[in-house]
């Protein structure tokens, strides 16, 4: 089965690599996340990133809480684009039409506009890939459980296991 999932993840990763190659002197890292902020893939620019940098070694999982926090504290409605200045770079985060997020870390504010154009260019492709990923994953994995399980059922399982194996 899941060669489809593996293939889609590889395509997402290729897109992230292409984004870096669009501006290799500016983009330090690219993260592609699902709509809950879980990182599906990330690519770091080895020319600009020190291999020992712990932030880049462990992909962040803060996007959903960041977005939720902003929406609840600021009267700005839904958040589709976030720009944040840090000491070591600038984060640009863009919503991929509620299918997920793309986040890049760039070197300087001079390239913010250019990078935004680059990100928008990849939005359609990533949207298609994330939708496919979600549908393939759910198709393969979802179990429909609609009959209520009782304590007696569990008791039967325990007794069944004990009958098959001397504990």
């Amino acid at each position, binding site marked *: 089965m899941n060669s489809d999932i593996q293939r889609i993840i590889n395509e997402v990763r290729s897109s992230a690599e292409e984004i870096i190659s669009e501006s290799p002197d500016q983009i330090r890292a690219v993260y592609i996340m699902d709509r809950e902020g879980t990182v599906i893939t990330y690519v770091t620019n080895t020319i600009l990133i020190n291999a020992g940098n712990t932030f880049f070694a462990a992909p962040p999982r803060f996007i959903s809480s960041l977005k939720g926090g902003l929406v609840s504290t600021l009267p700005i409605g839904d958040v589709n684009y976030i720009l944040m200045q840090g000491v070591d770079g600038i984060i640009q985060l863009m919503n991929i039409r509620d299918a997920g997020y793309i986040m890049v870390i760039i070197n300087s504010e001079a390239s913010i506009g250019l990078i935004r154009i680059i990100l928008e260019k990849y939005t359609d492709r990533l949207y298609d890939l994330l939708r496919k990923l979600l549908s393939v994953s759910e198709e393969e994995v979802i179990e429909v459980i609609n009959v209520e399980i009782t304590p007696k059922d569990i008791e039967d*399982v*325990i007794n069944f296991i004990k009958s*098959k*194996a001397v504990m």
Partner: protein
Amino acid sequence: MPIKTIKIVIAGPYGAGKTTFVKTLSEVLPIETDVPIMKSSIDGKKSTTVAFDYGRMKVREDLVVHLFGIPGQERFSFMWKIIARGMHGYLFIVDSSSEERVKEALGMYNFFRENFPSTPHVVAANKQDVPTAVDIPTIKSILKVPYEVKVMPLIATNRRSALFVLVTLLEEIRSYLIEMSRLR
């Protein structure tokens, strides 16, 4: 006659012993594990779970237990919630051969605690036969396991140990169901 399905998820980080656990159980119990799964070579390990391990055990004509193994690697974390949806309980296996390995499990354990806060579960400290194994109180402390959750020693290659852990999880699920029926 509708078939009742009990869904149990085997979670834990990469290399914790999830596949071994299901394999050991299948040596003793009539678990069908021939349902299609995918294996591939990643990170030097001979084989790793890319999709999920799957075992099915028929208890009665109308009662089946399904075991799902969750891929431990972070890059498949988007699938964790999808696989876990609708589960009755989960076993969280950690490699307890060193403190570093236990610490590596913290992110995934937090994920499950945050996303499935009331689902019954047991933490199994695997590789307790290794001389450097971390003791249970330390594991509880590192993972910040709630006091009511059991942390049990496990040797996933040992049938008795694997069965004992599975039965303990089932007992936790049964207690939870009894409690829920009282509250209704």
